[in-house]
């Protein structure tokens, strides 16, 4: 089942350490947001593979916005 990964805070996409097809474990950072000088990882809620990355570096994302999809 595909599962959307949502940003838990508002921030700017600082890094995207994963790409579609990558296997991730529960708790692995899928993207890293920067907000107020802090780097905050958005983590995979469970193990799986990255189906889609919906953001690009430098983009502002709002809390609750989908940043990636896991399958």
């Amino acid at each position, binding site marked *: 089942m595909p599962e959307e990964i949502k940003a*838990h*805070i*508002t*921030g*700017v996409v600082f890094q995207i350490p994963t790409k579609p097809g990558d296997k991730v474990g529960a708790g692995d950072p899928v993207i890293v947001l*920067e*907000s*107020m*000088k*802090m780097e*905050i990882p958005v983590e995979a809620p469970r193990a799986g593979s990255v189906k889609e990355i919906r953001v690009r570096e*430098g983009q*502002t994302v709002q809390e609750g916005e989908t940043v990636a999809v896991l399958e």
Partner: protein
Amino acid sequence: MLRTVLVANRGEIARRIVRGCRARGLGAVAVYSEADRDAPHVKDADRAIAIGPAPARESYLDIERIIAAARESGADAVHPGYGFLSENWRFAEACARAGLTFIGPSPEAIRAMGDKTEARRRMAAVGVPIVPGSPDPVADAAAAARVAAGIGYPVILKAAAGGGGIGMAKVTKESELAAAWATATRRAQAAFGRAEVYVERYVERGRHVEVQVFGDAKGAVVHMHERECSLQRRHQKLVEESPAPNLDAAVKRGLTEAAVAGARAIGYTNAGTLEFLVDERGFYFLEMNTRLQVEHPVTEEVTGLDLVAAQLDVAGGAALPWTQDAIRQRGAAVEVRVYAEDPAKNFLPSPGTITRLGLPRGEGLRIESGVVEGSVVSVHYDPLLFKLIATGADRAQAVARLAGALEACEVEGVKTTLPLLRRIAAHPDFRRGVVDTQMVEQGAFNA
């Protein structure tokens, strides 16, 4: 003499500097990013110049745009504030090349103290104690392990080009070292463009005590006593005070003498701060901040002296306005930093719009705020909203005023550190002046 100062910063510190310029009859020019078009610091200044988009890299960190703004406005001096370009020696040099007076130390002093291993070397050379560790960056994880074995665990890995806690990693045993090494070097490279890391003994229950120094172009250097800044989280200070409570008189004398000797050794001019770690075995130099500190108001309150005005005087070529004997601590002052962070989410940033802002007023209270009701707290900048400084005839009175003022603060629209600060102000250990650098993160003040 200076005439017009461009303030290369934002938020509360930009407002504080504009006020300092007024105190000396100087013109003040603000700069602002697109996100700060309506910010209070823009309205305070005589004139304001747009310098670019919201991301700091394209505005407040862009040396060329700031120099161009200074030229356009006819400013003859630049005050960098803290953060942003304040400890960038290339910026200080660019100001000088453009014929602008940089309100701060020389590029050489900024550069020497910005390189943390160079700073340790320079300080050790004049007898300032340093934390046991590697004198230079170490080559790899294996070399770090050899140094760590020599000084004993736990150790801390620190970025040589670093500051602000970025790239630091605590290592409690050898098996953790390789992973911590990889993290620290990667973060140092990402944040500072240099991956060099050095190793220091990790002081478990130390206090962070720092000394304010001030030098002029004729070589005079004074200290303005100490500040206790142990209550921190993520290596960022939350509470600062002066005098440092329960500080042994001999240690205090040692700290201030070391600070003056250190500043003199590098020919330091203008305001600066030497940070020390104090434990039961002694004190150690940590680093020097070659700029005005966030917490400078506690020093102003207990000495009755205006640090920003003195910065302007000294940068304009005047001699230090005070002799050492004239700088006395009277009473006590405590500052807290109110950040837009959510205590319920492990202090994650809490951007948003401030829908209500109620700030207390009263005897012995000073507020330095970068925001007003309606301000938008952006994801692009530091989460500091305002500082609350309480002063009293003694520490008990200052802390009582602080506790009362914290109860009266009202912020709606963003989450803040106010609940944590209220618990700190009421805590028996804090009331007794017993603090260390681990307390906040170890949960001493949790609800």
